[in-house]
């Protein structure tokens, strides 16, 4: 079994007390799941509809019990959701039949009280405490929030509803912080954080109103005249670069137009996410997940600050963080991969053939040389970064003889330091 020491595990298996206890647990599980399966069969034919409301409540309590013990089986969440939806639908019919057309109260109010979002989130949290990487538990959260939003008339212009949802989303950010504090690299949690952000964006005055499958939100502008080739939210991170937009013939919804249309609320939200990644990186330079998120926010940050900052200036700022990271923890890969990304993006743009960018590359080369020397030459990533930077310089500006020699010397050093990856180093020679 994944992650258990063999000798311990086998010893426990041979221990009669332990194996009896495990058999007991299995027996309980089997009884509960087979009863549940029977109830599901009974409930599946609407014409017979043997299930009373008490049965449905029992299913909810049993699925909750089972999932908090083993949060992995997807079908158990499905069964639970079927019952939740059925309960709401039954009551909705009842409410509609009894609805007073002269009343001021919002009929949707009744619906939301039938769906206990707080409880569903609680169940999911219990599951996640058991297994913070359970796909089903994270999805159940997303489903529950989307269902709640749909029902509370999220597509109506109701301020009260929006503030309710915003409150939930703020609390969910707290949950994200909790799980990230346990494991900074939990990608489910990072994905969920991005889902919450897309929900926050949807709650802004000009945000999207209708949630779509699995947190993919589509942005509509105030007058609803375009439906967003730019997807915010979990899709937010595939904002096309200026280059990609120019490639496609979507001139009527260019990137600048998209950004201009985006309200200040949304800009603030994304800037705060940018600041969040800065915080996470400064807390721990080994936070690959934070660097990854930063790489996704970068195109947006560039576009939104285009009037006040050039690409080069932005890159220079990023290099400050990178240099801090690599000098503090030279063996950690995170900052090095981010460096490669930043500079390769810079070198792709037309503004790269300038004296400023050449100076930047040279400056970085000096930094890397300094670091490698400080580590007595035993700094693999420093050497790789130096080699990569010299290669960029070679491709755009050309290299003099001394630099070419240095480049070849670096490859030899890497072959010695890192023989596992000899084949890759072997094909990095310069085409002179």
């Amino acid at each position: 079994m994944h992650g258990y020491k063999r000798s311990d595990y086998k010893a426990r298996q041979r221990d009669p007390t332990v194996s009896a206890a495990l058999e007991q647990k299995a027996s309980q599980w089997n009884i509960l799941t087979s009863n549940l399966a029977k109830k599901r069969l009974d409930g599946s034919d609407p014409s017979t509809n043997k299930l009373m409301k008490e049965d449905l409540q029992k299913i909810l309590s049993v699925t909750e019990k089972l999932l908090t013990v083993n949060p992995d089986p997807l079908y158990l969440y499905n069964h639970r959701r079927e019952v939740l939806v059925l309960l709401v639908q039954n009551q909705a019919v009842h409410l509609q039949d009894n609805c007073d057309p002269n009343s001021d109260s919002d009929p949707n109010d009744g619906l939301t009280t039938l769906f206990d979002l707080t409880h569903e989130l609680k169940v999911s949290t219990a599951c996640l405490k058991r297994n913070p990487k359970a796909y089903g538990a994270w999805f159940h959260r997303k489903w529950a929030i989307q269902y709640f939003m749909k029902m509370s008339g999220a597509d109506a212009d109701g301020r009260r509803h929006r503030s309710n949802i915003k409150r939930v989303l703020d609390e969910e950010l707290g949950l994200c912080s909790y799980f990230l504090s346990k494991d900074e690299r939990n990608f489910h949690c990072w994905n969920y954080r991005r889902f919450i952000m897309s929900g926050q964006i949807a709650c802004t005055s000009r945000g999207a109103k209708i949630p779509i499958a699995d947190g993919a939100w589509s942005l509509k502008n105030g007058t609803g005249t375009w439906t967003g080739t730019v997807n915010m939210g979990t899709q937010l991170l595939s904002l096309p670069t200026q280059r990609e937009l120019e490639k496609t013939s979507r001139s009527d919804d260019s990137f600048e137009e998209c950004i201009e249309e985006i309200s200040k609320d949304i800009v603030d939200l994304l800037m705060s996410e940018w600041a969040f990644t800065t915080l996470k990186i400064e807390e721990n330079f080994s936070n690959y997940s934070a660097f990854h998120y930063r790489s996704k926010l970068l195109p947006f940050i560039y576009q939104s600050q285009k009037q006040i900052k050039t690409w080069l200036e932005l890159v220079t700022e990023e290099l400050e963080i990178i240099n801090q990271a690599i000098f503090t923890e030279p063996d950690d890969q995170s900052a090095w991969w981010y460096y490669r990304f930043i500079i390769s993006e810079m070198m792709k743009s037309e503004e790269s053939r300038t004296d400023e960018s050449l100076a930047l590359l040279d400056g970085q080369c000096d930094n890397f040389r300094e670091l490698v020397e400080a580590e007595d030459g035993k700094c693999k990533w420093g050497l790789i970064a130096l080699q990569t930077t010299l290669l960029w310089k070679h491709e755009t500006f050309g290299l003099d003889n001394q630099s070419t020699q240095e480049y070849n010397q670096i490859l030899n050093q890497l072959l010695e330091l890192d023989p596992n990856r000899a084949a890759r180093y072997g094909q990095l020679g310069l085409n002179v």
Partner: protein
Amino acid sequence: SYVPAVYFFTNLRIHNKPLNRAQIINFLIKRKVFIIMGDDVPFYHARHVSYITSLASKLDAKNSYEGSVTEHLRMSGVYWSLAALSILKSEEEVDEMMGLNKALNETRPSIVDWVFMCYDSNVGGFGGNIGHDAHLLYTLSAVQILAIANRLDDERLDKKKVGVFVASLQQADGSFAGDVWGEIDTRFSYCALSTLSILGLLNNDDPMIDVDLAAEYVVSCRNFDGGFGCIPGAESHAGQIFCCIGALSLANALDTFDAELLSWWLCERQCDSGGLNGRPEKQADVCYSWWILSVLSILGRVDWINCTKLVDFILKCQDDEDGGIADRPDDMADVYHTFFGICGLSLMGHLQKLESSYRSIDPVYALPKDVVERLKLKSQMLR
């Protein structure tokens, strides 16, 4: 030398209990057999075979704890055990030893019969176990089992209906949900494309899905490091990368990403132990021997990692008493890591070096190559 002697004696039993390496050495020393010590860890073929073939009765035992904890993914577990054994044994032997086409005894149906018990004819998909909801993950595993069993023409398999189920899960942006509830993940893109391909529904004139859009969605999951995640914006992870590259291979779209950058990122997953991790600063785990090696095979860069050291790592993860392979040395084995460890050894040609009759694993379909050839399944390889 020492190694052949131990290999020869690997099947030695005393009082019907197999001996481990230390016991074999003692056995030989007592009989004054001259030994030259070497570091080579043998591949415990016989133990792995007995581990795999004894799984079913262990998990099906009344109130088996392991059985109940894993019952929801039994379809995948059966596929892992079948496919693993298929590397080690011939088609006929696998059929006989596992009760694939014909039940072994009255206590359990044949595997193929059991697979069809997990089929939901209303929906057109397969669940993880009897009575469990249809899902793309288990639909793929079911179809893979039927492919290995050479039973894709079974009258109970309504290929078109399964195709409709798969196609119904494609979303407007090309992504795939796992089931009707709507969880999106690039794992499901791979499951969808592979299922359709195995059923012969992918490369014909009347495609049931938008293949190009499916590929476009996968490409939208590309990251700054050349890798891919489970949804757009998600961090690169070797398991997701396999699903994405596998999907792109099936969609004939291997030109949509930077193969060199990805290969570099993947080869940096090799740790000092020789094992591979799934993303930076994580522990090595045997299963990445498959997720990463298969992608490097597709991209033609298996030599970018040190195969000798990886082989050593995998061999050290074996349970030399009861068979099976664990995630890392000295951990408890399970069928998932046993399968992927064997796959890794197969992809690196290590098994075939020991014994030429070992079968090979296809890096895109994760099926024996002879099965892929029999079914004439197509995929794109970069080199």
